[in-house]
């Protein structure tokens, strides 16, 4: 039977620009996040080359500040966040037995706005200077008085646009996980990765508006001479610190929680054992998310908030160690008594545990405010947060990628090259950052362009630079692995690791467009494992085979983000002096900015008035899949 109405189907590039399929959007997130990860990594290498010897002048001082700002901003917002979203998009709907996310169109908007913001931010390199006030952009250094280039404009507007993407993405996943779980999948039967994605989405919902407000205020300061943070006109610089960290601290947990989820899945699968203490794991995740909002001022112990605030935030911060400790021991005892298989994915996951513990304990050390007076803004802090973010999040992302690669692409990554990647990256990581603890204790402040000779910093910095190069080699090995794998045939089975426990392993690799031919019936935690243990090969379906409703692809999300991109540029350059020519009238009168906004609003209007009900895939088109009669 033919379709009820004509369906637009695109192929090639247009397919990718118009897709609303969560699996394809996941791949787009991975490509974009991976690209920015390489950019940020390159910036990191330049930083380490500058610091390999004292009084080096490999890059100029102001270039160095641009590099460190863009390294931090890129890695957090444009590399780590999208890679998390890549995994969430690729896996969460499969884990809960859904056919897509709740709002596929919004999902596409999320990706394209993030991408537009990220590109806009990096355009600054070619437009007269990148932002240079650190990823924290503390006022007054970030106010127009002290930052006269357009760098910080790119920062506020680029991040604002990218932030829209993250916020709508978070809302989308909240709705998806609450509403679209397969029959029988109660909250306490959800896989751990889905749980952590859920809590992360909730944190995004509450944390990103704070950033949006802060960035909007700073945008007013920069573009329209507002005075939120300009002290000479009655603004308050400390206010920005508060707003930034009210967003910034939960952001750390937004990043790390999904990594916790990945580690839980990988360790459990490759130990052939149920996750130890599942309910305490869920409880710990929720508690970390909750406490994460109450500790922002531990980034500000030296700001001079007074002893009462410092004492309270010290204690609140230390408390986070308790749920984190619960997780660590649960992972160890998941392995205890198991049958551990050392795949690359599991190497990354097992490597994660001690590394993250080290990042965690230095976190508790930093929480002791009087001691933090010494650690603060020194290399000790640099070491700490790289242990948490690289040693935690990035190892988690690598584990997740090796683990779910067959489900995303239908091919297994090469294990030998994978193990080479793990060992170079892992050893390089510890070489780079372990010594930085000592540099900090010896008195080396962070964000320094250079350091003097004769202070005892030389050797440790050299080791750190060598480590960074090793991490670079590890990353190249991963890229090589991706290329080699892409040339191989798609031959991964449904359950390529053979010990899969959750729903994503019940369907083909890669998953078909509609994910599940029939929505599965979930009868317990680790749904697939439960069926396997009872001798079954597949899930019991919860519905008969019928037409599957699919959303239509659309170019609107892409066009909307292009509009925002143009509007951003228009606002930034509205105040310049362009003489009397055509550019002056376009830019100075905000015509370009209005044009950009008009594109975006026009797309929203089109989307609202044009009803697109999507299309159905009829049962006779579901070739290749053998349905089970319900």
């Amino acid at each position, binding site marked *: 039977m033919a379709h009820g109405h004509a369906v637009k189907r695109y192929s090639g590039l247009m397919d990718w620009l118009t897709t609303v399929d969560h699996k394809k959007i996941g791949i787009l997130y991975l490509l974009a996040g991976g690209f920015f990860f390489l950019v940020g990594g390159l910036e990191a290498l330049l930083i380490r080359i500058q610091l390999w010897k004292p009084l080096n002048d490999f890059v100029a001082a102001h270039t160095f500040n641009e590099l460190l700002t863009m390294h931090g901003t890129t890695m957090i917002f444009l590399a780590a966040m999208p890679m998390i979203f890549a995994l969430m998009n690729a896996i969460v709907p499969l884990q809960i037995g859904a056919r897509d996310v709740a709002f596929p169109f919004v999902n596409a908007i999320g990706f394209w706005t993030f991408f537009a913001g990220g590109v806009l931010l990096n355009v600054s390199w070619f437009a007269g200077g990148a932002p240079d006030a650190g990823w924290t952009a503390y006022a007054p250094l970030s106010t127009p008085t002290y930052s006269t280039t357009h760098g910080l404009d790119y920062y506020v507007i680029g991040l604002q646009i990218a932030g829209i993407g993250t916020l709508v993405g978070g809302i989308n996943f909240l709705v998806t996980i609450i509403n679209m779980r397969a029959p029988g999948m109660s909250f306490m039967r959800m896989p751990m990765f889905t749980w952590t994605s859920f809590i992360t989405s909730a944190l995004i919902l509450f944390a990103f508006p704070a950033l949006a407000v802060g960035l909007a205020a700073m945008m007013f300061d920069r573009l329209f001479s507002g005075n939120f943070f300009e002290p000479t006109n009655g603004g308050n610089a400390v206010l920005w610190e508060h707003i930034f960290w009210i967003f910034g601290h939960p952001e750390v947990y937004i990043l790390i929680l999904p990594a916790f989820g990945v580690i839980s899945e990988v360790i459990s699968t490759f*130990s052939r054992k149920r996750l130890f203490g599942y309910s305490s794991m869920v409880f710990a995740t929720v508690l970390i998310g909750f406490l994460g909002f109450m500790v922002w001022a531990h980034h500000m112990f030296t700001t001079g908030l007074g002893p009462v605030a410092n004492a309270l935030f010290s204690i609140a911060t230390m408390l986070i160690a308790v749920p984190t400790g619960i997780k660590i021991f649960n992972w160890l005892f998941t392995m205890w008594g198991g049958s551990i298989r050392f795949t690359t994915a599991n190497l990354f996951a097992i490597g994660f545990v001690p590394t993250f513990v080290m990042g965690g304990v230095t976190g508790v050390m930093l929480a002791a405010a009087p001691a933090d007076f010494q650690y603060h803004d020194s290399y000790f802090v640099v070491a700490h947060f790289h242990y948490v973010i690289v040693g935690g999040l990035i190892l988690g992302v690598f584990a997740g990628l090796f683990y779910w690669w067959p489900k995303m692409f239908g091919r297994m990554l090469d294990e030998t090259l994978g193990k080479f990647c793990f060992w170079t990256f892992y050893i390089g990581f510890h070489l780079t950052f372990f010594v930085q603890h000592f540099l900090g204790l010896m008195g080396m402040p962070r964000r320094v*362009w250079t350091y003097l*000779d004769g202070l005892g910093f030389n050797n440790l910095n050299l080791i750190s630079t060598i480590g960074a190069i090793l991490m670079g080699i590890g990353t190249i090995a991963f890229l090589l692995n991706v290329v080699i794998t892409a040339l191989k045939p798609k031959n991964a089975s449904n359950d390529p690791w053979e010990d899969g426990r959750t729903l994503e392993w019940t369907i083909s690799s890669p998953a078909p467009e509609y994910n599940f031919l029939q929505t599965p019936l979930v009868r317990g935690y680790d749904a697939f494992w439960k069926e396997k243990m009872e001798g079954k090969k597949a899930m019991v379906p919860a519905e008969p085979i019928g037409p599957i409703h699919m959303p239509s692809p659309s170019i609107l999300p892409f066009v909307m983000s292009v509009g925002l991109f143009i509007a951003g540029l228009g606002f930034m350059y509205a105040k310049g002096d362009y003489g009397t020519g055509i550019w002056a009238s376009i830019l100075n009168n905000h015509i370009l900015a209005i044009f950009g906004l008009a594109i975006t609003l026009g797309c929203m209007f089109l989307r609202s008035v044009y009803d697109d009900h999507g299309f159905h895939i009829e049962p006779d088109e579901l070739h290749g899949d053998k349905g089970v009669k319900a």
Partner: protein
Amino acid sequence: MSTLRPQGPVAEEQFGLMKLTILIMVLVVVIVFAIAVYVIIRFRRRPGDKSIPAQVEGNHKLEIIWTVIPIILLIILGVPTVKSVFGLAKDYTKDPNAVQVKVTAHQYWWEFEYPNLGVKTAQELMIPNDAIISIEAKTADVLHSFWIPSLAGKIDTNPGGNVNVMYFEAPKTGVYLGKCAELCGPSHSLMDFKVKVVDRASFDRWVAAMKNPVALPADAEVAELLNKQCLSCHAIGGNGGPAFPNLTGIGSRESVAGILMNTDQPQYKNEGTVKDNLIKWIEDPQAVKPGTLMPKVDLTKEQIEAISDYLAGLKLEY
């Protein structure tokens, strides 16, 4: 300058807390590592092993243990932390026995004013070894952070009348390195200063010497030049303007511009005699400290030499 070799009671208290936390944390790390190594070796999958391990759901006793023990450790850590937070927040700004210093941070130099003594200096904080030093810190432009690793932890310098206070003591005489610890622009990494701790008698002599009038250069031409080119911004003794670093006694300081170390046996790129350093600095300030407000003044080589000669000779007896 290391925080690991504290030279005063405040840094010692902070170091003590650091040692306590490190001790507890090393304990935690060792336990986790030990369990991890044991598990990885003991429970690795042997080739051909198809057995299914017992699917343990959890263990309440164990889970309670690893919840309660961290809580106990945190109490051990939390009590001295809170005590120390309040102890270090003591305000000595009204204490007549303490030496009061107003620290003002600038891009990229430090101004030290002794309001009770009527003395103002730059780049080098001179303090006696027998009193509490009470600091009131603020900034004239962007955020900076005042840090002397071996004497005390840091405090941010905030703009707009938001003054932070801290105190420390330095019982041992000597010279300590101070740093800016908050990103403040291109020369953030070069915004060092020195803390010179001397005994009470020397300190008093230094204060008196700072107030003595300073003679202008004997050569009228150099004096004219100095008046026109330098004293419009800088002060020397009773002459000149207050906006930029006070140069009184610059000849006996440890460094020029905070970063060029004065020594007769130069070892590194940033070291030289006082005069050489002054010449290097005046010839091209941007090359020494990118982004500094000190302009490249239009002077001939001879003029720079003459001014540097004069400045290098500005020594204080103390």
